[in-house]
């Protein structure tokens, strides 16, 4: 594990561990409280495995009432809490703390209501993303966001991270597909946000809870909108001799008013790694490969396949191939979907980064990354959600080699800073967590961050929920609340006052 500064464990809490375990057992009887080191190891990390920490104790409640009691107990006793969904997060959002209760929501795995009249499903937070689609697909419906971990990630975790997927540009992220949330606050109070209707009656708290990485509350129920599956879908495989042409092709597709269901780009190294692994039939003699998926009624899809093919040829594509069967469409995707494990085959370890940039800066960013690759002596493969500018550079390294992890992390941090300099952001869909926490100051000023932290204070004044994540320094709420008024200096001295 590399050096990662986490909040110092509270010795008083650690000294009361036995008492805390007993109190939790009174709330969740039986095997729902885990306190042996061997069993706690199962929770020591999430999808960001470079960081590990065994929690003080883990608790797996089965009812909302138990969740409320656990939170209320921890709040009253100043005990930190780290919520956890499926444990697949890529930014360390569920990394335990040595002095915290790990609150696992995995037992909340029931689908509560499927309402086709109002096109929504209400589920418990531990239900997996894919399970929602599975539950409604026999009626021709699906849940749109499809993060690549969808077989294992939970919908509660998706809410916490505002998870995306390859269909975001057309169908939105998690935030755009939610109708309602039930959230337990750190005090144990329960709030309902939204429901089966549209739009918030007051402040859009569903909007801020989504993507809040477990720092504002614990999601106990989720209502998502479900969509009718498009009648048909076809994909285009398009190869380009240079990356600039691929970028221009993406811009031209959108300028023609076409929003594809998915638009993915891969660079030469990513193409080679995936082709070796799954033999999807990708061309090896191109610098950039685009997969463009178009969905909708068959006549629309036919029309758009033609238009996108024409745009690709106008941009000097060296290969334009349209899928002619569902099997072929899935094969086009097989390579892209296997890109991460494929890179895992050619390198002992890799770090997956997640910046977003304005698309037109893609050639410049890729050029600068290739310079960084030389500087750090580490290879880098790129997969890219081209439609929305979300870049996933995969930095290849060997943790067994001295200092390679550290070099990889520095390389990654430089890439993210580069994204910010180019008008982009630190994270498009994986979250800040612990991974990008210390880079927040590169994107936001102290005043910017203080305004975000005050929102945290409104939800969790004691700072007990998931501390050490998202913010480089978590200020005390009392300190943030102070007003700095320059009394001597009144800019509009002539206005009436009363």
């Amino acid at each position, binding site marked *: 594990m590399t050096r990662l500064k986490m909040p110092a464990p509270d010795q008083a809490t650690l000294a009361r561990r036995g008492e805390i375990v007993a109190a939790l057992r009174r709330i969740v009887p039986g095997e729902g409280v885990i306190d042996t080191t061997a069993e706690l190891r199962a929770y020591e990390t999430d999808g960001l495995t470079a960081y590990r920490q065994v929690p003080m104790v883990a608790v797996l409640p089965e009812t909302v009432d138990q969740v409320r009691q656990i939170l209320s107990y921890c709040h009253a006793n100043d005990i930190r809490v780290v919520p956890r969904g499926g444990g697949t997060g890529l930014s360390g959002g569920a990394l335990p703390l040595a002095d915290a209760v790990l609150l696992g929501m995995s037992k909340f795995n029931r689908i509560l209501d499927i309402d086709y009249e109002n096109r929504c499903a209400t589920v418990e937070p531990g239900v997996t993303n894919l399970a929602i689609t599975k539950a409604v697909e026999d009626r021709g419906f699906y849940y749109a966001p499809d993060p690549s971990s969808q077989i294992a990630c939970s919908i509660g975790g998706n809410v916490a991270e505002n998870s995306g997927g390859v269909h975001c540009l057309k169908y939105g992220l998690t935030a755009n597909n939610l109708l309602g949330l039930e959230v337990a606050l750190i005090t144990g109070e329960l709030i309902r946000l939204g429901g089966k209707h549209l739009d918030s009656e007051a402040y859009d708290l569903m*909007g801020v809870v*989504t993507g809040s990485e477990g720092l504002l509350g614990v999601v106990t129920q989720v209502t998502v909108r479900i969509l*009718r599956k498009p009648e048909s879908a076809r994909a285009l495989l398009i190869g380009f001799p240079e990356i600039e042409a691929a970028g221009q092709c993406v811009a031209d597709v959108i300028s023609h008013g076409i929003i594809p269901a998915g638009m993915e780009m891969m660079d030469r190294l990513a193409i080679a790694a995936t082709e070796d692994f799954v033999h999807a039939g990708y061309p090896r003699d191109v610098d950039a490969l685009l997969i463009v998926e178009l969905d909708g009624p068959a006549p629309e899809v036919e029309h758009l396949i033609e238009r996108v093919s024409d745009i690709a040829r106008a941009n000097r594509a060296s290969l334009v191939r349209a899928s002619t069967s569902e099997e072929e469409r899935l094969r086009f995707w097989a390579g892209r979907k296997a890109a991460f494990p494929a890179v895992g085959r050619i390198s002992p370890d890799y770090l997956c980064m997640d910046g977003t940039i304005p698309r037109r800066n893609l050639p410049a960013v890729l050029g600068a990354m290739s310079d960084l690759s030389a500087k750090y002596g580490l290879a880098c493969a790129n997969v890219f959600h081209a439609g929305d500018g979300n870049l996933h550079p995969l930095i290849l390294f060997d943790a067994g080699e001295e200092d390679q992890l550290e070099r990889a992390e520095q390389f990654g941090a430089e890439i993210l800073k580069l994204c910010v300099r180019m008008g982009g*952001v630190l994270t498009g869909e994986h979250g800040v967590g612990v991974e990008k926490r210390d880079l927040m100051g590169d994107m936001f000023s102290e005043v910017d961050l203080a305004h975000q932290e*005050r929102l945290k204070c409104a939800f969790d004044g004691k700072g007990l929920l998931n501390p050490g994540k998202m913010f480089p320094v978590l200020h005390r709420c009392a300190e943030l609340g102070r007003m700095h008024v320059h009394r001597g200096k*009144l800019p*509009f001295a002539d206005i009436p006052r009363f």
Partner: protein
Amino acid sequence: MTELKPEDQGGVADAILSAIAGKTPMEVVGSATMRTIGRPLATALRLDLSGLAGLIFYEPEELVLSAKAGTRRSEIEALLRASRQAFAFEPPDFARLLGSNQGGTLGGMIAANLSGPRRIRSGALRDHILGFSAVSGRGEAFRCGGRVMKNVTGYDLPKLMAGSWGTLCALTEVTMKVMPAPETVATLLLFGLNDEDASAAMRDAMRSPFDMAGAAHLPADVARASALADIAGAGASVTLLRLEGFGESVAFRLAELRAGITAEQAVLDPQRSDLAWGEIRDVHLLAEPRERIVWRVSLPPSEGPRAMDHIRTAAPAAIGYYDWAGGLLWVSVPPSEHGSTQVIRGAIPPATGHATLIRGPESLRSSVFVFEPLPDPLAKLTQRIKQAFDPAGVLNPGRMYHFA
């Protein structure tokens, strides 16, 4: 009333710092077109943000536009049209309904989270705000979000700004996601359906694979207020189902949709289609008589007819229509001391929906909850959020909720 009209972010900060120092709360406006929505404010100061105007950048191929918050919507919408793009959430303009001046600003549009008929397909305004700069009620300039489509860096404060009615911050710059405008549009009209059958028809259409971009139902007593002869002259209720997209696709989906429907039908061409959806979006259909009170109710689509029935039974002079496939009711009631508040809110099913008083006299807006009252843990949390951004209570105090 003293009006402060700063021309840059520093001026906005100075104005707010003065208000804090002088303990003089302010009414925050863009061009004040919606100032009659919300609890009336009795402030001695008004902060006018319309001086912060102008485009910052517009990159059509990146689907992004950034402008100062006081920029007129009409200016931006004309710019988008010239590149065959639009705000996908189809923001309404309530000028005629409210009898206010034309010419709302981007900041006002965001403060009200204005979303029109296409909201059921393309999301609300809050789904299209990418980033902003603002001065909070602490007098501090800050920003959040960005200019890219996909961003989870920090809390999503842009969504918090949408629908906060100027009670948290004075917006100074906003960055929005824009989308291609549909190549063409067609609207299928169904005549003579009762509310139940119309609601079922709209929900069937929404469950179809035809990708509806609008579904509304005008009972006969509302339809006759239409400016379109196709609708006003029907002498019956009119249900509207809208399809948008590429020409071939719209033609194909329209044919498929019609094949499954037996009710009497007609089709509106693009020009008349835009007029029809415009009067639904902007609530022209309930604009007159001017003294009537207008409510906006959001609820699960399947609950629409039951709620409307409840309202008509308890307030026989009420008229109203359905948008959002039945999930949005626009209701007009005659003037009365309490504006039929209990009737309207009593029609909302338990725990899912809300009603907002959009048009009503000042006396009514001072005495009832204009926005849906909040249950306790949520009310206290809302109050703490207000205090976090505006601890001195200088920005539109009490406009949404009046905290003790």
